[in-house]
Structure formats: C-alpha cells, structure tokens
C-alpha cells in the first residue's frame, strides 16, 4: 500500500547522529530468479529494524546483501563508520572490509553452529573475537569472556566446555556473547530465536531486548515471528516475493495493517 514510505528520506531529528546505514534501490537476482527488488531505507543509530515475511519472501537475501556477504545485482549500501566516514559496502578494500566486519559489525545466525567454532571452548569463542580486535593479554581476555558469559547467563564453570556440550539455547546465547564482546555498532540477526523451544525463546528474547537497549545497538533483525518483531523492533519492513509491501512503526504495522498480505500475516497468528 505504501512502499513509497520506505524510500522517503527523513532528516536526522534535532541533536541526533546521521543515519548509520543508507540503502538505495537494492535488487538481487539469482540468475533469472528474483531475490529482492528495489529496497531503500535508512537505519538510524540505536534503531532496531525488523524484516518480516514468510519463507521465500526475500528477507534473508536482503539481510545477506546488507551485511556485504554477497554483492547485489544493483543498488547501493552506504555505511557510516565509527570515525564518521561513509563507505560503499560493495566497493570496500579487503582490509577495510575485514576491519569493519571484525570491530564494528556482528552477525547472529539462526543456527549457532554457523556462528560458533564448535571445536573451540566457550571462552575461546569469545576470546577469538577479542584477539581479532587486537587484544593480546590472556588474563584480560579471560576475564572479559567470563564477564560476557555471566551477561548471557552461562555459568562461569562452563567456560572451558566446547559449545557441543551446550544446549541449543546456551549455544545461541554464546553466539550472541561472541558477537557483542567486541562492542559492535551494528548487528545483523537472522531468526535468532528460530530454532529454540518456546520457553527458551522467551528467555533469549528478554536477554536480547536488554542487551540491545543497554548497549544502544543498531540491529537489522530478520524474523518470521511477529511476536518477536513486536517485542524487539522499533520499525518493520514487510516483504513478499522480494518486494517491500508495507513498512512503518512496529505496533502500527501489526495492529493496523493496510496491505492485504500484511493483514493475512497478522490474522494468521494463533491467539495464545
């Protein structure tokens, strides 16, 4: 109904930093097949943007494009780094790209095994990310790792265990700790609660909500779970067949959906 809303350029509010991510006309084709088409939006500091839609709607394609995991067929993604320099994500030198990936961005995968090193201890998983950012002092790395295990509610005496000895929920919390330990500014999340039992999901959601608010993180969150989107995201983009069909304030999109597809999605939620 209002896909133009997403591309509307809004100026920074008074006293606010400029946009962190500026996406314009982003399209991707897998050969002939459409991944996503003509996506434009800005992401602001401290903002959590939810991308919702069914399987195959193009939301994971969009997330991977944003995170620079593969180049788009057309369109641009501009990122403003910690020093205030703006980069075109798809024409970065390898050195700058690696620096941003290591120190300024995080990526939380749906399956912890895609984001963790399963043969390395929990402490090692967290420490590795710190070492990639330049930490060398073993004692500091270990105490930071312990601190982060506590923040994601993993007992200190599990620090030397491998993730294979952890439950699914603990693995996911460890993956989150590994991503956040380096103090990233922007975190991409792909169905972070997707593979978990409902009771474990609630715990993780609450934890994510607290961490994101407390750290003032900017997040792009892909989820098919509208309850997760409502709880975590300030703003939503609804995708269908690779295109944005509706966008806006999260509770407005969910409580007063305008596009037929969004209405169908919302009316399909089971009442608990």
């Amino acid at each position, binding site marked *: 109904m209002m896909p133009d809303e997403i591309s509307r350029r809004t100026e920074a*509010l008074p006293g606010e930093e400029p946009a962190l991510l500026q996406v314009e006309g982003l399209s991707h084709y897998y050969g002939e097949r459409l991944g996503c088409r003509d996506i434009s939006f800005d992401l602001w500091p401290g903002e959590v943007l939810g991308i919702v839609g069914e399987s195959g709607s193009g939301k994971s394609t969009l997330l991977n494009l944003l995170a620079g995991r593969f180049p788009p067929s057309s369109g641009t993604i501009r990122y403003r780094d910690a020093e205030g320099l703006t980069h075109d994500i798809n024409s970065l030198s390898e050195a700058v790209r690696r620096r941003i990936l290591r120190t300024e961005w995080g990526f939380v995968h749906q399956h912890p095994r895609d984001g963790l090193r399963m043969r390395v201890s929990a402490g090692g998983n967290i420490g590795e990310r710190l070492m990639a950012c330049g930490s060398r002092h073993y004692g500091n790395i270990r105490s930071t790792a312990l601190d982060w295990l506590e923040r994601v509610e993993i007992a200190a005496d599990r620090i030397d265990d491998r993730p294979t000895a952890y439950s699914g929920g603990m693995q996911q919390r460890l993956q989150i700790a590994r991503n956040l330990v380096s103090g990233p500014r922007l975190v991409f999340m792909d169905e972070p609660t997707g593979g978990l039992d409902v009771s474990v999901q609630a715990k993780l*959601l609450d934890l994510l909500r607290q961490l994101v608010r407390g750290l003032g993180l900017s997040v792009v969150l892909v989820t098919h779970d509208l309850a997760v989107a409502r709880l975590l995201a300030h703003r939503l983009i609804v995708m269908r067949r690779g295109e944005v069909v509706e966008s806006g304030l999260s509770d407005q999109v969910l409580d007063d959906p305008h596009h037929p597809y969004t209405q*169908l999605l919302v009316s399909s939620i089971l009442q608990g």
Partner: protein
Amino acid sequence: MDTTVNEPVLSVRGLSKSFTLHTQGGTVIEAFADLDIAVRPGECLALHGPSGAGKSTLLRALYANYKPCSGSIIVKHGNSQVDMATASPRAVLSVRHSTMGYVSQFLRVIPRVSCLDIVAERLSLHGEKDDAAREKAGELLARLRIPKGLWNLAPATFSGGEQQRVNIARGFIRHYPILLLDEPTASLDAANRETVVALIREARSAGSAVIGIFHDEAVRDAVADRVFTLRPH
C-alpha cells in the same frame, strides 16, 4: 506569565479513520469521521458514546497505534510540534517517550520481566538510576495495593485487576504532558478506583492534559471537566 500555558497541547482536525478488511472481501468499517478536538494542559476530556462508537480507536489513533485516513493530530512536543498522523516512526517514538503516555485496557506482558522493573523502566529510560527508579515504582505499586510479594514476579500469572494496576502504575510513574487512558478503572474494586481517581487528579494538577474513556459514571464525574461524544456509524 507564560502565555503558552493555555495553548492546546493536542489539536485534532478533521480526523477520520476507517478499516478496509482485505481478507474479508474488502469490507470497509468506518470508525469515525471528521473529528475536531483540542485539549489544554490540566484539562480532562472524557470520550463518551456507546460501545462501537470508536472511542478506543480514537485513543489508538492519537497514540499513532492506528493510522488515520485523513486529518491531523498536532502534539506539542518539547519546543516543536509533531503531527502524529504523518510523523516518521522515530518522531512518534520520541513523542511517546517523553510527551504522550497511554494506559491501554490490557497489559501486554513482556516475558520474564518483573512487574517492578516494568514500571521502573519508564524512569530508567529517562536516566533515573535503577535503585531510585525501583524505589519509586515500589511506592506506586504499594499505593495501588499490589502486594510486595508480587513485585519481583512477571505479571503473566497475575489476575486481570492486578495486571491493570501494573499497567496504570507504568502510565503514572512519571509526568506526561498528555495522558491517554482507556478504561483505567474497568476491572478495579472501589478502593483502587479511588486511588486511580486521585492519580488522575494529581496528574491534572501537575499540568497533564488527560483524554480518557471512563465507563464508570462516578469516575467520569470525578475526573473529567468536559465530555466529547462520539456517535456510532
């Protein structure tokens, strides 16, 4: 003397809202049309009308939870003015953060968060220290007769009346220049109803403009100085 004191903090012009139900054959439901409302600091406006007249829908539209079809909702937000009908999501969130409070009929429960923290969060988001925020939250919960034994529990298992009082505490824990109340006393006993009446009066004395739906006539008479009548379509 401050000459802006009597300026409306909320001005509604030509506001209309209808819903088009695409999943039900495109049925159009008109909630209300062409409303004009102005509310000044310290005033309390009661929305009146039969069930289905659009009272709750109007409150939700003012809070930008529903998107109006036409018209404007101009809110005095700090030194600026924001039209809630067309504002960007970030501007709406900024208004909700500091200018406009809303007590809905039902508490939307956040898993695992204690009722004390649900209330205290409204203060800590404005920079209050956690301990001080919790202490003030506890005082208000006590005033609303929520037993101390429940403070550290998540409200998912609370009774309807207890959840409603947690919701009220969250709405009244800090000063909002505009306060929207949707049946705040609906499931409360007489003693708690009196407490809510007192809270609304205190908010008005502190300068809040209140717009509310009060099913209970005695409560309405006790808190409101004007009535706005909506007619069903």
